[in-house]
């Protein structure tokens, strides 16, 4: 944990503290100060590390999911305001989609979407409460090449196996990255269902997208 002095000096630590306090004005001020100092690199060098530390803090049991969620939502709004719709700050690469399989509880999807968008990746929301068949049909022909699948219950996590089979059977060239409680508890489950990778927290999505979606700013 950073000291108060360090947090004052380091814009990323200032932003992190403001996010943990869910203090939107302080977060906006911290990011504005970072932009003044770092220019276009503020998202990459200040915002993304702050979100990554918050995600790691949750995984290590130091922070609460409510803090991760609020931090993601605030960052999504802040990033939206400074990232142009098309331009050098936006990442380009393979098309990315996200969906919740077999559930109407959206928290995981919203946290991941906020984190991914905050880091400059465009991401398409494919919906929630979807069956494996419906999601496979939605992805086929959509141009999506990286699919993030959020699950809450074990039965939904096991349905990823059916989703992967349908996508492979349809020759849909898409990588399937999974997340959610069942995958965090059973660290072999993502392999069992045939996913390409799993993320234990929302910030894990960022290195996974670097790996699977590629592209550049």
């Amino acid at each position: 944990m950073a000291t108060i002095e360090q947090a004052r000096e380091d814009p990323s630590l200032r932003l992190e503290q403001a996010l943990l306090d869910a203090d939107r004005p302080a977060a906006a001020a911290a990011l504005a100060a970072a932009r003044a100092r770092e220019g276009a690199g503020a998202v990459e060098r200040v915002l993304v590390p702050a979100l990554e530390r918050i995600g790691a803090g949750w995984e290590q049991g130091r922070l609460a999911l409510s803090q991760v969620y609020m931090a993601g939502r605030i960052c999504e709004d802040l990033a939206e305001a400074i990232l142009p719709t098309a331009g050098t700050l936006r990442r380009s690469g393979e098309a990315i989609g996200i969906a919740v399989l077999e559930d109407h509880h959206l928290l995981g999807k919203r946290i991941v979407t906020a984190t991914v968008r905050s880091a400059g990746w465009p991401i398409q929301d494919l919906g929630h409460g979807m069956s494996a068949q419906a999601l496979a049909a939605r992805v086929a022909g959509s141009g999506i090449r990286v699919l993030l699948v959020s699950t809450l219950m074990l039965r939904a996590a096991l349905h990823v196996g059916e989703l992967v089979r349908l996508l492979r059977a349809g020759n849909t060239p898409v990588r399937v990255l999974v997340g959610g409680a069942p995958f965090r508890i059973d660290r072999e489950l993502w392999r069992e269902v045939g996913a390409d990778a799993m993320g234990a927290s929302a910030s894990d999505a960022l290195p996974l997208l670097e790996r699977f979606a590629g592209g550049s700013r």
Partner: protein
Amino acid sequence: MTGSPATPSAAARVAEALGHREADRVPFFLPATMHGARLLGVPLPEYYGSAELMARGQLRLRERLGHDAVSCSICAAAEVEPFGGEVLLFEDGPPNAGEPPLRSAADIERLRPPDPGDFPALRRTLALASALRQRLGDEVPIMGGAVAPFSLPALQLGLGRWFEILEDAPGLAERLVRVNEVFCASLGNALLAAGAGAVGLGEPLASPSMVPAERYRELGLPALRRTIAAIRGPVAVSTASAPCAAVAADLAGAGAVAVGVSGADDLAEVKRRLRGRAAVIGNLDGIRMRRWSAAEAERAVQAALAAAGPGGGFVLSEHHGEVPFQVPQQVLEAVADAVRRWGNYPLTWARDAK
């Protein structure tokens, strides 16, 4: 399963444990509601639609496992129906809640506490409690279940929206929690009146992994305390598989006679923190159970017994409140066998190992 002087009834065994005393052995509880359907050969949607089938399934399961308590809780999702939500049924897993029914501040402001008996899924829950009580008498404890007032908004609003309201509209959050307190206490008392001997409140949002403990103590904990005070019977509280160690003493202080401990917690440490104030229930991990061999089940049971068994005050159980449908029946039987093999007091083997 009638008790004798040498073999106490399940109810007596559980009562001894909750009283922090050693009975003949550590009691155990496997909330494997769905496995009853499998034993009856009935599809889950049909099973969940009938209190009679669920009662028969629970009894059949108990004949096989001999566990010391049965559950009359159908599913947490049943509690969204009184607020306008939908219960979704599946062939391969528990019922789930549909879209969160409360969508706006106005929805919360106009909310009045509903009567649990007015809605089909909760009526079936109450009928299940009655059917089990009729067949089991006082020999076996029947656990009712309800979602605690601070955690129910996860189903009513969706968790993200609830986090936003907690942060941005504390007055609205308090109003919703107050409505939920009345509903929760009313459901708890209806369960007791129908035949449940105790009520388990699910309070996952008490876990510091979900909401910072200081925030929980501002709104959730006082609501829990008032709710427990309004329920006319013993109440256990569980964070439903989320870590609880940092707030376990708060939950006991709110009036819980027992606290459900997560597989992620240090069971011995939580028991030490609650010593003499509340018993501990836990902490087998249902998701991991799916892969267990008989030997792994035995080792997990032994570890829990050694951590929390000595001195009483412990009920061995799955930690989430529902064993996944995908856990093989043989694993449940291996757990039951291991408790009978290793759970007999005075647990000399566990004391010697220390």
